[in-house]
């Protein structure tokens, strides 16, 4: 069933729109306060370098992330989204990240279905001790989004034209 859906969904993002040479993607990162945000702080204190494209928003728990936030970001400011929470089983709020995981799975399928490439929105688990992993994740996401180019699909300004 899943494979069938995947086959039918064809990315309608237009790769032929060429990005200007100095173009840099903007990525929104939403991190949970207790694991991933602390992990990103550790990346800082360890002075591990990563690409400067991510803009981080702090939330108490990954379960606070409403799919609306992702859609709003893709509509307005961001070319890609990274959401990160505590590892399964480690949630500060007992079970929040499990709800988040399920919610993201559905959101991702929906975004896929309406034409977003699956790398536009990515999820990861980063613990408070994984500073190096956070840098790796951000680098990978930035690479992926750079390959995809600027996001034009469903951007608000395009509707107004």
């Amino acid at each position: 069933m899943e494979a069938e859906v995947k086959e039918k969904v064809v990315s309608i993002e237009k790769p032929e729109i060429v990005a200007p040479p100095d173009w840099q993607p903007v990525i929104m990162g939403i991190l949970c306060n207790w694991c991933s945000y602390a992990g990103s702080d550790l990346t800082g204190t360890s002075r591990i370098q990563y690409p400067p494209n991510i803009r981080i928003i702090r939330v108490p728990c990954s379960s606070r992330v409403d799919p609306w936030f992702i859609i709003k970001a893709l509509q307005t400011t961001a070319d890609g989204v990274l959401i990160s929470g505590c590892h399964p089983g480690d949630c500060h709020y007992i079970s929040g990240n499990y709800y988040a995981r399920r919610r993201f799975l559905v959101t991702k399928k929906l975004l896929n279905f309406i034409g977003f490439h699956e790398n536009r929105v990515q999820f990861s688990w980063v613990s408070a001790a994984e500073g190096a992993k956070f840098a790796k994740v951000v680098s990978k996401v930035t690479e992926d989004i750079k390959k995809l180019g600027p996001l034009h699909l469903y951007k608000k300004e395009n509707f107004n034209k």
Partner: protein
Amino acid sequence: MARVGVFVCFCGANIADFVDVPKVVEEVKKIKAVKYCIEYKYMCSDPGQGMIRDAIVQHRLTSVVVAACSPRMHEKTFRKALSDAGMNPYLLEVANIREHSSWVHQKDKKAATEKASDLIRMAIAKSIANEQLFEISVPVTKRALVIGGGIAGIQAALDIADARIPVTLIERSPSIGGRMAQLDETFPTLDCSQCILTPKMVDVASHPYIELIPYSEVIELQGFVGNYVAKIRKKASYVNFETCTGCGACWQKCPVKVPNEFNMGIDKRKAIYTPFPQAVPNKPVIDAEHCTYLLKGKCGVCAKVCEKGSIDYTMQDEVIEREVGAVVVATGYDLWDPKPYEEYGVGRYKDVITSLEFERMVSASGPTNGVPVRPSDGKVPKNVVFIKCIGSRDEAKGIEYCSKVCCMYTAKHAILLHHKVHDSHAYIFYMDIRAGGKGYEEFVKRAQTETAATYLRGRVSKIYKKGDKLIVCGEDAQLGQKVEVVADLVVLATAIIPYKTNPELARLLGISYDKYGYLSEAHPKLRPVETAKAGIFLAGCTQAPKDIPDTVAQASACAAKVCGLFAGDTMKKDPMVSKINIEFCTGCQNCITVCPYQAIVTEDVPFGHGSKELRTVSKINEGVCQGCGSCVAICRSMAINLSGFTDPQIINEIVAI
């Protein structure tokens, strides 16, 4: 109209070396809502905070953004600066331009500067939607419930009660004392367990601030921190404790004999019994499973001999309620059943016993009056083999973890054996000797030298019987040789496991437990006595295997936590909790499903003003809510918002990226 003040920190050179701070300030000043923007070397220092305080007053700021280090670092510091200037502290936002910009983009100053400006713009946008929040004060019931009357529960109860806070101590068995009461002498000082424990037990019974409810269990816990209601089932004892004098005539005459649990079944007790002579309270209870009268309606000897008429066969279980503000869980441990070790003859050979059986035998008040004997023929053993790690550190048959105390008590057993039977010899098979603790290594040395116990590193492969002796076949790994010891008695150091009802108890208290059944602490290092549920604390082996000093320390830590919780008449709580607008609530109750703290309940409210018709909506208990925001994201009608992380705040941030 928003009037935002922005304060950009150099953090010495930490930020200023990699981010062009004056340029950031220039950029920020272009934003309309910003009425004041300044940079300073150390914003967190006293002069830095002074600048914030002055600017708030001078420029009539409506919110403040500090661009500095991570909010996890100094958010509290800057909030205090706002409070000091008479501003609501929750109107602060921190832009993290150190950990998220200057420190991670050290090779690209232009990009780091741009990113810092962006992060500040996001924080400004968020701060515009910030609302004044006020600390929540929750009334507190100043009474603690201690579950379990072992040394952990006793110590916690005494410490809390000494602070003049009433304590209800409940214990499932007829007497407090727990496992420690079963021990003979304790390592590493060899002072007698009873001598140090029983005075504490008496203190508990006579303490004006302790209500002792023996032979009872908690069956329900409702409410939240500071305001719990516990339902306690007092099991029917069939003896009126008010009138019973504890004379003992009843159990002396009772004709029914049952294996004595306190002595690990080595001798018998009666159907009406006190667990041990020093029991507190020293009142007997009737064991309904074995009492002839309760089973068949005949006998009644105890009632006949009781001069006070305290025996009441019609007694029923009784459920009582106690309002408590905090709960200390100290349910203790059990011993692992060594049955899977068939090759050791467990269950087949009477002379293969567990360490606690040995402990009861060497106890002066034990079934053999302090002399170890062979259960098979009652003879005093000469050669005794102790085998450590039975079940512990054994993934195949038992559990993975180390039970922590076995190395020490086995050394103690070797010494005690030598004290009781002078011409005896102890052989100890071990995997490792783990003797971390004050005086512990010296104690093991004492067993090896003074007692001349033979320590053999290696596992035992088989035990078989030859005549009336047991042949223990093992390996001495240090010599690389097989060894055979002709033993009179074999003592197995069985693993510590959590009490079997722990998962059930955890569910009814609403706390978590690990794969073994140990109750989980909130943080393994920094919050070792708290649970994830506020107001519930853990002491002793219910959390993990530990020795008596650690247990006592943890129990006292629990008491300190409880006293801290009860320090004021009300508790102060962070106001970053969910709030519901019942006008929008459709009563779908999805929020109730996702709430990990059971903080949301339903409430019936009138449809409109003056309407008699009712509709069901959700209601959030601010005292319980921990502010995760699960309910906010699940709410379809957007009736719920999380203070401090509201939808408008986050959307503002997203749009400002």
